[in-house]
């Protein structure tokens, strides 16, 4: 049995941990409200924008109306934009989205240019790449991957300006570098308890029918877009509108993915910290009980010693 002093020390450290987790929970709880409000407010716009994009893309069979709509037949290399948090202590949040992205890449079997947003994702992917390099059994496409850009410390309430650089890299990758498809891996916010890691295609934009079955099986079910047969009239001209709409709406998809991820991260952290606080409390209770027992035991044994001593004295007096 550990000594009372030992137990007292452990009780103190559990209490300290409890204080830290409570504080983190409170911080996340206030960020989560803001992040949730932001993600829900911008969702209608993002969804409509996506709807318009997909419909524009649907008309763009044959000669693409815009370079970002160009569908290439041979997919030799892909880019994946991976959105994670900068910090840990958010339960399985970071691990889940990274695992989802890696699973996608291993199944799609193409060399990857990673674009990481968030320090945790960068660190995990770096480790993953290093491990593949030393693995003799890894297929060639896994040895041929790298991080081409990394971003971190996005503001708590990002807007289009904050993700402009990310979008620029995405466009450059697709238009100048031999990357034939760009995907985005992020965590979709459903509610405080549930978040869903998913991978969606970002570029080129194209209607569902034009996607290979291969892709359909690998990515998450997408936000539903009602297909209509539309031949738009463009005013002032197709080129003028598409030049404005396509890059901007693509940026918006990235922004929305970042917002969804932020909301998910705060929620995951809040729940993880609440669980930790509760565990700390029940551990504290157990330790307290153990401490009481140990204390009682030492008192009992001291009394026994005294009583025994007194008895011994009595007997020697009598004798």
């Amino acid at each position, binding site marked *: 049995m550990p000594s009372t002093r030992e137990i007292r020390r452990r009780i103190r450290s559990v209490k300290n941990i409890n204080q830290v987790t409570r504080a983190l929970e409170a911080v996340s709880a206030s960020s989560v409200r803001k992040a949730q409000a932001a993600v829900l*407010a*911008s969702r*209608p*716009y993002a969804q*409509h*924008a996506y*709807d*318009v994009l997909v*419909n*524009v893309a649907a008309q763009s069979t044959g000669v693409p109306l815009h370079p970002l709509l160009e569908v290439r037949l041979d997919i030799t290399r892909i880019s994946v934009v991976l959105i994670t948090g900068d910090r840990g202590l958010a339960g399985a949040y970071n691990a889940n989205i990274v695992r989802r992205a890696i699973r996608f890449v291993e199944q799609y079997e193409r060399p990857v240019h990673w674009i990481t947003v968030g320090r945790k994702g960068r660190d995990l992917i770096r480790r993953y790449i290093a491990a593949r390099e030393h693995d003799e059994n890894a297929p060639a496409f896994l040895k041929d991957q790298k991080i081409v850009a990394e971003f971190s410390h996005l503001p708590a309430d990002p807007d*289009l300006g904050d993700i402009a650089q990310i979008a620029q890299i995405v466009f450059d990758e697709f238009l100048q570098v031999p990357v034939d498809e760009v995907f985005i891996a992020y965590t979709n916010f459903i509610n405080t308890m549930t978040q869903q890691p998913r991978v969606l295609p970002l570029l080129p934009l194209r209607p569902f029918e034009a996607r290979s079955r291969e892709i359909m099986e690998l990515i998450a079910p997408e936000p539903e877009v009602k297909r*209509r047969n*539309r*031949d*738009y*009239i*463009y*005013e*002032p001209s197709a080129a*003028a*509108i598409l030049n*404005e*709409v396509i890059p901007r709406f693509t940026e*918006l998809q990235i922004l929305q993915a970042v917002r969804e991820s932020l909301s998910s991260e705060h929620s995951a952290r809040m729940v993880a910290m609440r669980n930790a606080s509760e565990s700390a409390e029940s551990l504290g209770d157990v330790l307290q009980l153990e401490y009481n027992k140990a204390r009682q035991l030492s008192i009992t044994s001291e009394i026994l010693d005294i009583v025994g001593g007194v008895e011994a004295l009595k007997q020697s007096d009598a004798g």
Partner: protein
Amino acid sequence: MPLEVEVVSRVRRLYHTERADMVIIPGSEGEMGVLPNHTPLLTTLAFGELRIVEGEDVVSFVVYGGVVEVRPDKVTVLADDAESVYELDMAQIEDARNRARDLMAASPNAERRAEIAQELRRVEIAAKVHGRVQGRGQRVRSLEDEN
């Protein structure tokens, strides 16, 4: 057949109706009235007044750029930024206008001046739309009544 109209800005959904008779859009190529069964169209928005006619009522918004998608049964307005006329306050508009003019006079930086000019343009449009709506004696409906 009535027309469904949805007005969203980047930060919120402003309005949704399924009973519109006509939408008047401030397109970048000029003002344009859209009736039900219009042919599909995609156009950019200028700064200006967006009007939705619903029976006797007219609902007005000030929009500051963006894109409109027209379909036979639905018009979706994706504004960069938008306000309901109901939210406009003439005193605030005056205030903003004066502040912008002062800033403009005080600022030597060309880039900054362009920014302020843009802001000033917004304010002017808001003032004009507000005046026009007042002049028509149009009943201004509160968004809170609707949603």
